[in-house]
């Protein structure tokens, strides 16, 4: 049984065919990276999975139950969680308050503070907990949002360019965070441009091109694929 499956998914924006017959199945417990050139439809696919857009046709299944028409918050309650490309945090509130809002849904007041402390430590934000979230460094904001996403104890975590704008050290630390979560059983689907990061974490890779699934396999298979290199990896592989 796959944890998440899209079946024959299509999305048209007017005359633009953004998602073209995408069938993707995520195995429970894997780290799956979604790569592809700009405009390949990666973010749109994310928004379809989250329920922020409705697909034109096709179905989305979570643990074999159809969720195609469910609202975003209903999917979240099933065990899907997301970290956006631009840090989606509560900028005007303190770091601690950000995490409290993410955690309060699920816990009694007594457990809440302990859980916030534990999460702050995991995110390396303990000393910054009193700060206004909008004043954090870019990398810290990304971590805070990852923290809010994992506070829900998701079974499936969606990461949209989690390392965008991070220094190489921060990127590596983020990779370790993702792997630590995965060891605890969290399935991860990540959109990522940074090939070093993909190499670090990915167990399987899907290449999206013009809204279609272009290739799928391990990172080594994808890198060895000449066609993929020609559309996308050529430039990135040279840097890696």
């Amino acid at each position, binding site marked *: 049984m796959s944890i998440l499956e899209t079946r024959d998914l299509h999305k048209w924006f007017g005359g633009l065919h953004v998602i073209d017959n995408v069938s993707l199945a995520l195995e429970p417990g894997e780290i799956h990276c979604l790569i592809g050139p700009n405009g390949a439809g990666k973010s749109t696919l994310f928004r379809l999975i*989250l329920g*922020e857009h409705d697909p034109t046709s096709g179905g989305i299944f979570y643990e074999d139950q159809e969720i195609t028409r469910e*609202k*975003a*918050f209903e999917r*979240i*309650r099933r065990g899907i*969680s*997301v970290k*956006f490309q631009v840090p*989606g*945090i*509560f*900028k*005007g*509130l*303190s770091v601690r*308050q950000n995490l*409290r*809002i*993410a955690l*309060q*849904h699920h816990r009694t*007041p007594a457990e809440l503070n302990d859980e916030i402390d534990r999460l702050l430590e995991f995110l390396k934000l303990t000393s910054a907990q009193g700060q206004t979230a909008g004043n954090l460094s870019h990398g810290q904001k990304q971590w805070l*949002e990852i923290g*809010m*996403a994992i*506070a*829900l104890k998701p079974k499936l975590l969606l990461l949209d360019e989690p390392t965008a704008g991070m220094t190489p050290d921060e990127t590596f630390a983020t990779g370790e965070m993702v792997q630590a979560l995965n060891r605890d059983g969290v399935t991860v689907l990540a959109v990522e441009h940074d090939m070093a990061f993909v190499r670090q974490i990915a167990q399987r890779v899907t290449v999206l091109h013009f809204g279609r699934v272009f290739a799928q396999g391990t990172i080594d298979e994808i890198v060895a694929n000449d066609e993929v290199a020609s559309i996308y990896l050529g430039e990135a592989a040279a840097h890696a």
Partner: protein
Amino acid sequence: MARYSKLRNWLSLLEGPQTWGRGRVFWAGFLLVVAAASAYPLFADGYDVGNNVYFFNWTFMALGLCLIWGYGGALSFGQTAFFGVAGYAYGILTINFGDAYGFTLIALLAAVGIAALLAAVLGYFLFFGRISGVFLGIVTLSVTLVLERFMAQTAGPEWRIGSARLNGFNGMGSMPSLTIPWPGGDIVLFPDVALYYVTLGLLVLVYLGLRILVNSRFGNVLVAIRENPERAEMLGYDIRKYQLGMFLIGSALAGLSGVLYTSWGNYITPSSMGMTAAALPIVWVAVGGRSDLTATLLGTLLVLACFQALTIYGSQYALVVMGILLVLTVLLVPKGVVLGLASLASRLFSRGKQGATSP
């Protein structure tokens, strides 16, 4: 025992990240202010005391707007719609059924309930239709202006509900004041000392209740929606329900203002729902500081007092000055005058304490 600890949990929410003021000093100050307000009638003429209840009447509407706009991030221009609906409802009910057997109190609850019902219907379409930002302001403003226009054309004798004439622009008058049934004879709350204490008590209750509300889980979600609705939804919250709840409570408080005002002056007019009236709550709340209940409350009383003084000496120009005040506040202290002063004071205070070590 369990009930006791639950109560303690509730009371602990009087302080929290969403409200300014905590600790002994703040609450000592709070008690001092309440004591001073309670002592005021002892030193003043009953007529003046009754007149000054006028200021308290508006604060409920301001606190409601503070909840909707300051905490929930939705600028509602329609507080006066609920104010007017509840005011007229109170008038119609009490003119028809009188003030015996404590009926005015039932009318108060019913009138606030009618305003809340209207808010529920309007709020459902607004929030479940995902209307936000400037469009929310436009729709709510339209509602209050439509109600004003409608009530203004009800001058003819055919516009009556039971024995209550609506009276168009002349306004509806001569409804009974709120009356508390009492064994030794009913207490009629004319604009006098008794009404002052009742209104003050209500204000303290509402203020404390709202402090608990905004620091509760519900309040946490409200500010989350204000900061980033998409993220709030992606934490699994059905934000539409929270927004509807906030709109309902805030609008009901505007309704409470409407009833208190109508009972206080035995009079309500369509202009209470007009353009000028609709803009004033925005001014009070913005000038005081919309993101905090205490700042809103103090700011509202301050602006009302200034406005009153201006009306006496400057008559028509008072509104122009109000407009200028709003523009200046938005430009110079966007957080609001009370919050701006508070943060200035705390900066000066901490600089004084740290001395030369501060940068």
